């Protein structure tokens, strides 16, 4: 490591001699903050689980009091899909904090791993997020259309409109995430080019 030159206009001099506040965390503070950070992550996870629990409880309650097996099948699929998505969020969310091995990887390697993980999450959105939720929603909507046909005017037309809306929303989410994945891929390509 070289010492900054004694030249007055040397930028290394200016940089290294700038006053610092001497911020220093004690071991106890670090431990407390690390623990608080874990609590924060746990609470965030809990909020996700709570939202999923509301969905599961709602459809679970309706499941218990609905006789139509077709509608019950749709609800069961929604509950199963929601549980699967929460499990996936739990697994994939594990990388939210900086791993202990961060000092073993150079920036390019570390950043590349992170970007690939995020890109794969976005690219495979259908397999772990949209896909598991869709069957239950489609079955439920068709089942409700079937059950109300003859009693509600234009029941099938309404079903088709609802299905169209769901398809459009899921399609838009997929397109947005694929665009984000392409942006991440460009960053990965840049890192690959830089490391050559």
């Amino acid at each position, binding site marked *: 490591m070289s010492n900054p030159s004694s030249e007055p206009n040397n930028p290394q001099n200016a940089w*290294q001699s700038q006053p610092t506040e001497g911020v220093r*965390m004690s*071991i106890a503070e670090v431990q407390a*903050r690390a623990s608080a950070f874990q609590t924060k992550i746990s609470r965030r996870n809990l909020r996700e689980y709570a939202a999923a629990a509301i969905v599961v409880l709602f459809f679970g309650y309706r499941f218990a009091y609905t006789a139509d097996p077709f509608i019950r099948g749709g609800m069961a699929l929604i509950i199963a899909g929601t549980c699967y998505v929460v499990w996936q969020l739990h697994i994939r969310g594990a990388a939210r904090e*900086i791993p202990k091995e961060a000092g073993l*990887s*150079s*920036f390019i390697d570390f950043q590349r791993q992170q970007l690939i993980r995020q890109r794969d999450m976005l690219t495979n959105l259908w397999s772990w997020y949209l896909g598991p939720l869709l069957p239950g929603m489609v079955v439920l909507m068709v089942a409700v259309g079937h059950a109300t046909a003859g009693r509600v005017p234009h029941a099938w037309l309404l079903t088709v409109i609802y299905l169209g809306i769901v398809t459009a929303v899921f399609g838009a989410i997929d397109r947005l995430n694929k665009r984000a994945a392409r942006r991440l891929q460009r960053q990965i390509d840049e890192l690959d080019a830089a490391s050559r």
Partner: protein
Amino acid sequence: MPDEPSPISPSPGISSPVNLSPAPIARAQAARDSRFEEALDLYGPALERLARAWEADADTRRDLLQEVHIALWRSLEAFDGRCSLRTWVYRVAHNTAASHVAREMRLKQREFIGIEDLAQVPDQGPSQTGNQDQLAILYTMIHQLKPLDRQVMLAYLEGLDAASTAEITGLSASNVATKIHRIKHLLAQRMNKAATPQTRDPRPQTPSTQNGGPQ
């Protein structure tokens, strides 16, 4: 900062995690804590400068510095002496800070540029060359740079040689040398321009053009 990092041996009890009874665990934790203290003694000011370089907002910067300290403390559990403590500290700090900036980029839709493109960006630095003004020029440049180039510039400013910078960033030493050459050239241009009175921009400065340094 010291010129050469002290030779580091693996922490006792860390490299052989099998059958750890309470006493070796306590020793390993004590070794991690003492390594952490040593890292802050040696590189604490550099970590502060690094946080300033990665984050302009004062409140967020404080959070980032804490995040770096916590990540460093946690990571030292895995420190096995395969690289110097200095390399380890810089890697953890830069990886943590870059992840922070990546989050900010996603939230604020910010775009950064490479060293090669920085020469094309109009200089918004101050018009004199006191120490504070040099710093303002440096921060203006740093805050515009992409994470990888930002690391190279910071490593240069901290006085790290090309080989150490390559070890931290993952770039080849020759690639680092090329980037440092460009940085030096650009810095000389900006500093000289600021030092030459006739090249000053006669337009009145707006708050945004005066605000090149840390917030």
